[in-house]
């Protein structure tokens, strides 16, 4: 038995460590779960972590089944896989729910290469929308009088409610977040590092995307 199989990651040549990648993914997962809208993707992190997992799994297979290390590594991998699966699933759920809206926005974002979806998510969204359209046509529209067959997809679009309230924690000092007040008096607040708040998602959406705050 190879007793000195080192399951380490030192052969990784990138500057960021696997640990940092994992932390970033965990934060991304948490934000994605709690934000009403879809957030910019972290595909590079996902890909990198999937690579790590594969690498790790190959090494585990070299260990004896009864080796304690094997079960520890397996447990960790299962935990990471859960985060990744849940993260991707959450995104797909959002893509399905707000499909039309997301595609409209994404088309604009693609022009400036600030896309939020990965290429495969984008394709998934397009296919999904096409399927919905075909479904509506074959089940309803083809069976009603021709003057009622017009279908405007944009009118059946569902939008995320950006005015919903969310809990957040500030990762760093943020000055002058403007809270819109219906009485016309806008309130300005500062988010100190480490402080926690509940407020509308809309004014802090950009802060979530650039990592200055974290949803909790």
């Amino acid at each position, binding site marked *: 038995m190879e007793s000195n199989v*080192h*399951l380490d990651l030192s052969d990784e040549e990138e500057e960021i460590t696997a640990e940092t990648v*994992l932390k970033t993914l965990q934060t991304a997962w948490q934000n994605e779960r709690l934000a009403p809208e879809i957030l910019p993707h972290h595909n590079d992190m996902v890909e990198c972590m999937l690579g790590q997992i594969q690498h790790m799994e190959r090494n585990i297979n070299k260990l004896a089944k009864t080796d304690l290390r094997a079960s520890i590594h397996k*447990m960790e991998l299962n935990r990471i896989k859960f985060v990744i699966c849940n993260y991707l699933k959450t995104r797909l759920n959002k893509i399905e729910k707000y499909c039309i809206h997301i595609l409209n926005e994404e088309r604009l974002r693609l022009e400036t290469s600030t896309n939020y979806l990965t290429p495969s998510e984008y394709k998934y969204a397009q296919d999904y929308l096409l399927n919905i359209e075909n479904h509506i046509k074959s089940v309803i529209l083809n069976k009603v009088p021709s003057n009622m067959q017009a279908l405007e997809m944009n009118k059946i679009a569902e939008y995320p409610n950006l005015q919903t*309230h969310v809990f957040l924690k500030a990762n760093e000092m943020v000055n002058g977040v403007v809270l819109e007040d219906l009485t016309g008096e806008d309130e300005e607040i500062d988010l100190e590092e480490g402080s926690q708040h509940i*407020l509308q998602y809309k004014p802090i959406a950009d802060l979530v995307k650039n990592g200055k705050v974290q949803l909790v």
Partner: protein
Amino acid sequence: MDPCEIEFIGENRIISIIPNFTYDKIYLICGEFGPFRAGLPLNVPLWLAMMLKQKQKCRIVPPDWMDIDVLENIKEEEKRSRFFTKMPNEHYMVEAKLILGAAAEDVPNSSEIKTIIKDIWDIRMSKLRTSMDALMKSGGGYGRLDHLTMMEINSVKPLLPAAMDNLLRIQMKTKKTAPTSSLNTSSFSQSGTSQHT
């Protein structure tokens, strides 16, 4: 989020254990831990500690705050203060539940400690309910929640944000200045008939 997901996040915290086996350093993705020396304490993530405990391969070293005197102080402080006090640990409830659940014999006075932690939780939750009530009555769309732990925040998630959303909706309706379309309720309309006339 589901409470077990909060527990999952809390399980990444580092705690101290005393293993009863000897092993080299282990290189995990979340960091390197070890070397394990039988009888010598070392730090590992909570999930690993729980796993080793279940395999009866270690004893848990109770965290510093898991002590009757410390907790009594926190409890008194919590009672005295109008605001939420800072907890010794961002995931105190998760940690307490897991450690006292799986390794009660490793914690001295575990049953008393369990009771005190439950008391602290209850005091904080009742405070939280009072402040939520005050927040809603003042009609505010903003609240500050320093020192609340994730599990506590999560426990009011089904209620508070939804209540504030609805309050905002009512305010907008009465204001009438804001266009109702921005409320983002989904609508399903077929435009065929209206265009036909």
